[in-house]
């Protein structure tokens, strides 16, 4: 049994300690908002927050996240009201949308650390998140906008 806190809710999971958090979230807890893109820490699709730090859920064994606070895209807000989500909608950032949960979680982590990032800080924080559809320039705009709206929440 591994104890896990996801979006403020405690879970007891029956799984091997080596199972990556990604598959526990998706297959065991039915939380499919966090995406698989590479399984190797290369694309950022699976980004979640562990005690406010962005981590790649595909490369993080359950043993390493036991007793930590995990925040996934589903936990950011119940209604899409988080300033980063709002900015994403305002700039119509998503195309296919598949990478966007990871992008949003990386952006949230960035704004919590650096509430007014410049382009360079955005590029540095977001360059681990791939988007095959090519939404990067809108992501940059949306992060600036979210920062103005107090996105650091």
């Amino acid at each position, binding site marked *: 049994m591994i104890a896990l806190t996801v979006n403020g809710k405690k879970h007891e999971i029956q*799984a*091997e300690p080596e199972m*990556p958090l990604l*598959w*526990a979230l*998706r*297959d*065991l807890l*039915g*939380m*499919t*908002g*966090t*995406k*698989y*893109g*590479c*399984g*190797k820490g*290369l*694309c950022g*699709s699976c980004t979640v927050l562990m005690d406010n730090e962005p981590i790649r859920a595909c490369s993080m064994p359950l043993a390493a996240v036991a007793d930590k606070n995990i925040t*996934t*895209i*589903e936990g*950011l*807000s119940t*209604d*899409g009201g988080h300033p980063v*989500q709002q900015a*994403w*909608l305002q700039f*119509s950032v*998503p*195309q*296919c*949308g*598949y*990478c*966007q*949960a990871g992008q*949003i979680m990386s952006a949230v982590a960035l704004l919590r650390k650096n509430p007014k990032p410049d382009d360079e800080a*955005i*590029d*540095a924080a*977001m*360059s*681990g*998140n*791939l*988007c*095959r*559809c*090519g*939404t*990067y*320039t*809108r*992501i*940059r705009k949306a992060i600036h906008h979210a920062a103005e709206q107090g996105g650091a929440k």
Partner: protein
Amino acid sequence: MTLSRRAFIQRLSFGSAGLTIGLQLQASSFAPADATEFTPDVFVTLEASGTVRIRCHRSEMGQGIRSTIPRLIADEMEADWNKVVVEQALGDAKYGDQNTDGSRSIRKNYDRLKRAGATVRTLLQQAAADTWQVAPDQVRIHNHAAHHADGKKTLGFGALVAKAANLPVPAADQLTLKPEKDYRYVMKKEWELLDGLDIVTGKAEYGYDVAVKDMKIALIARPPVVFGKVKSFDASETLKVPGVLEVVEMPALSPPAAFKMLGGIAVVAEHTWAAIQGREKLKIEWEDGPNAKYDTVAHQAEFEKALEDPKHVVRQHGNWQEAESQAESRLDAAYKVAGLAHATMEPLAATARLTDDGVEVWACTQTPQAAQANVMQTLEIPQEKANSVKVHVTLLGGGFGRKSKPDYVAEAAFLAHKTKRTIKVLWTREDEIQHGYYHSPSYQKLAATFQKGKLSGWYHAMVNHPIGATFNPAARVGGSADLGQGDAPYDVPHMRIVNGETDTFMRIGWLRSVTNINNAFAASSFADECAAHLKKDPLAFLLELIGPDRHIDLQAEGYGYGNYGETTERFPIDTARLKQVLNTVAKQAEWTRKRPKGHGLGIAVHRSFCSYVGAVIEVSMADNKLKIEDIHLAIDCGLAINPDRVHSQLEGAAMFAISNALYGQITAEKGRVVQSNFHDFPLARINQFPSIRTTIVSSDGPPGGVGEPGVPPVAPALCNAIFAASGKRYRDLPLSQFGIV
């Protein structure tokens, strides 16, 4: 003759066989007088509550089609968008073609979707006229209601359902379509994304996310070489992995590959992690078969041989030999573009469940009807039982042409049938990169002759592994190889366009903009080389090369040009429009403004999928490292139905093209794909992208393609810019192999 991709697909036994039907049906001759809803055509149902249900029959993969189609219908029928519910259509021939591919969802359906909306509007108008006992022209349909000419009486849409349901559906020629100037939603800037909220809250469901009761997960170890087979295998360690349920041998693949399963060994497990571990523990001995001799690097010699004297003439006019013999000077250059994988951010996924009479499938597919046909073929379900195979289309985490090949859907159906379980087949990134339907590597030779300071002759020879070989192993040339090559819109007295022949050893398929990728790269780079040769400004030279305003008549030259399945009357090759996007993008980029030292501007223009795109890219080179400073694109796609998604498709196309130009390279050794994940098949990252500015040139032409046309001019504009900045010409993609990225 070279077939267009569309014509080509229609010749396959599966694919877009459906015809446009459904609009001529009766509203319902059986409708009771108190009908609570009516469905006068396949796209729209109006409920007595006033709710309108609109079906989107095309797949959503980021192009915004789930926003575009329903809004177009809603606008035409005068529905209030707030009362519209969008449903995703199942795969069904009654919708006509559903293959969301070839940049044609709007191009091919615009009029038809308008007719669907107009049908409902006309019936509601008649129903209100009957109610009020006036002539229909005394009734105005506006914003979800019928309004009497007296200015007093109104009836909401819902109140008219029972009456409208009993009226005969008007024939197409009795419909009046809304003029563009009256649109309320269509062609307007601000549309929220239909699935935007679901996407940003993690609720959107992709093929990978499907969860059905009692579903198990399957991963498949596929033969590393196409047409390879399992010689023997040992699954004893696999079966010890907790969570692994069983191991299934898949049927081996025999030519043609088409959309059939690749074969291999499937591991069925309770969850993905168990399936991953179980697959790693399989011990398989493969029999590779004849394709194991294929080596991409070594095959280059075959490509070169094929272009020594290529015989497959695509197009010619004038007399190239004469141009050669009379030339005052000439230019020759050879170009290479590597093979590419689609690398959709969401790899492939399909779920299948057996039902009482057939199979139910959920998949991120671009082509639910081909998926349905593929399942039927795999399970030997006869055509008359097509309705027993239900294909639900989820959201697609990218498509780019890969998800129009439903091999993975067949795998899920086969495994469900074999194991009697509900099965979700997942492809890992490694699977996606190593078992693709690749954009073929290509080799091209171009030559130009000059007389009196002008271009007098143009020669373009190309060889690649043809897409046709995937469906007919004997095919050695053709199969949409001529896109962006045969239709070179240049005003030159002598022209010869030819292709070489070669064998094929992998599955080759269409990938966003298809052979335009390599052909436009070579042709638009070479045009820039010609400008440099003549010491002319590249923009001025391109305008001269395109020549006077005219419609280029390729048929008159005896070239059976496919024109993306469109007539040249409706979608001519219009040089005025080409020049207009070129001038627009040049102006936007301030082409004549002096740039700092080390900076360079590159330009290219290209027509594909019946739309026109001009590109200007600014780069700087410092310490032999490339930096992209700015990207400008301008499109003329005819009417821009959903302008924001036109902009976003251009942004995406630019990045797609740049990723490919910088890094895209699939190679095989011993028939096996070398690359496996984003470390060796990288995509460009956010820090490599400056601002992108996109412009839609206003146009009243019929809507052309949008998803693909942005791709072709970007790579040549990039390399032309590098030349301008550094004097160095790169004719070989990707650029990463030269250490400048």
